[in-house]
């Protein structure tokens, strides 16, 4: 576990190289525990810190619960007039319950939501997966994957008769298998 020392900003005047990459200037101090159980202070640049899941101070994590609580406590009259055209939820309703009414609410409230999203996630752009478009392919690949696991289990159990049968089912399901 690496713990950033929250109240210990790195002095800007004397740049120390990052202990990890040795190149970029260190910006974060972290306390790590070495293999002998002793705590060691290390200095990391923002990039190396981020790659280890450490947020640099300044971008200090606000507990999500705190962000949501703040929403509830800051309901104004204008929020009651901001309405989703699809489900008729008002922004004030969202603030009170912290639940949106429909996918369209994101469009209707986006200007108000963006700062909230930014505070919760530290980002406003999705970089993960997108949904699959084709049902047939998706079903086939789910079945093939499941059968592959069955195949390796059968091989591991040295049940070759079953393994051969599973392999045939994989071929039938459209998988490329398998020797």
């Amino acid at each position, binding site marked *: 576990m690496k713990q950033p020392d929250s109240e210990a900003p790195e002095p800007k005047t004397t740049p120390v190289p990052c202990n990890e990459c040795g190149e970029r200037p260190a910006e974060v101090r972290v306390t790590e525990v070495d293999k002998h*159980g002793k705590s060691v202070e290390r200095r990391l640049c923002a990039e190396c810190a981020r790659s280890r899941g450490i947020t640099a101070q300044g971008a200090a994590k606000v507990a999500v619960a705190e962000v949501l609580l703040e929403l509830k406590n800051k309901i104004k009259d204008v929020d009651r007039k901001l309405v989703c055209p699809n489900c008729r939820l008002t922004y004030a309703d969202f603030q009170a319950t912290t639940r949106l*009414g429909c996918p369209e609410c994101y469009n209707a409230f986006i200007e108000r939501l963006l700062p909230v999203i930014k505070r919760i996630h530290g980002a406003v752009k*999705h970089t993960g997966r997108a*949904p699959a478009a084709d049902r047939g392919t998706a079903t086939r690949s789910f079945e093939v994957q499941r059968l592959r696991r069955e195949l390796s289990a059968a091989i591991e159990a040295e049940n070759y008769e079953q393994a051969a049968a599973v392999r045939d089912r994989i071929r039938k399901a459209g998988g490329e298998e398998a020797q």
Partner: protein
Amino acid sequence: MFDKTLGRWLDATGPHADIVLSSRIRLARNVAGVNFPSRALPADQERVIDGVEGALQNLSIFAPDRFLRSKRLTPVQTGFLVERHLASLEFAAEGMSRAIFVGQDEMLSVMVNEEDHLRLQTISSGLDFGPALKEVQSLDEVLGAGLGYAFSGQYGFLTACPTNLGTGMRASVLIHLPGLALTREIEKILRGALQVGLAVRGLYGEGSETRGNLFQISNQVTLGKSEEEIVEVLTRIATDVVGFERKARDYLLEKLRLEIEDKVLRADAVLRAARVLTGDEATNLLGVLRLGVTTGLIPSPSTRLINELMILCRPANLQVYHDQELTPPERDAVRAELVRARLATA
């Protein structure tokens, strides 16, 4: 569904299963063009349930008797699902048409009309997200192609609460930390997890107490990171926590062996002898017993049996196991009897 066989994730075969009970992934998804469950008309809620049932029907894992509609479930059966970590507390709340599909071995499940239209879940033993992530993503593709998800290129999967926006993914580990609790380092370690943006909760999620020194550590950020990155960070931090727990256990066995042995053997004796056991007492004593077995202080029972007893001792599971409704005092007696019987044959 409501029988005595338990989920495979309890079998203690995964990596670091002596300390990490389970790795769980949950994906939040919604159907495009339909209001989120809390604002959907009853007919729309039913339509989503039917849609999920239809999409699952094409899969060989689908067993119709494991597709359960909340309106046909008794409160005890719903409690049973919550205690087995298949359904959430919110799922158990009344007033909406909900459903849950539970896959074979309780590894994969899909909750319908909880906070979001769909919550896909996978649980596996130990600290291991690899195969589980692939599997749940594969199921996700089938459901997404069948139902049509609410998705935006900019914000990802659109969820009822913006805290789940983006990947809609919550990955969590259920971790047993008696060593760190006894050495009083637990707070420091868990605070460290919070500082790297993870959330720490008790055994049954948000707002639940930490009993038996069982903790859940999960990601908070769901937007701006890929599914793989989220799992990677959580795995790395959980591995660190496991390392600290091992050190704490080594320290305890070296410096305080007598005290720990005493604690473990007393727990063992009480569990084997008690005629009345409350749920909390059973969970706490089983936690101590688990420490004893996983550190080799006592040879039996198996870690698997202890994991299973932790679930079987919960009120609703106890009632399903005994096939009758029981008052709390009756439960305490039945619980003690169950624990005694299972430990005697272990």
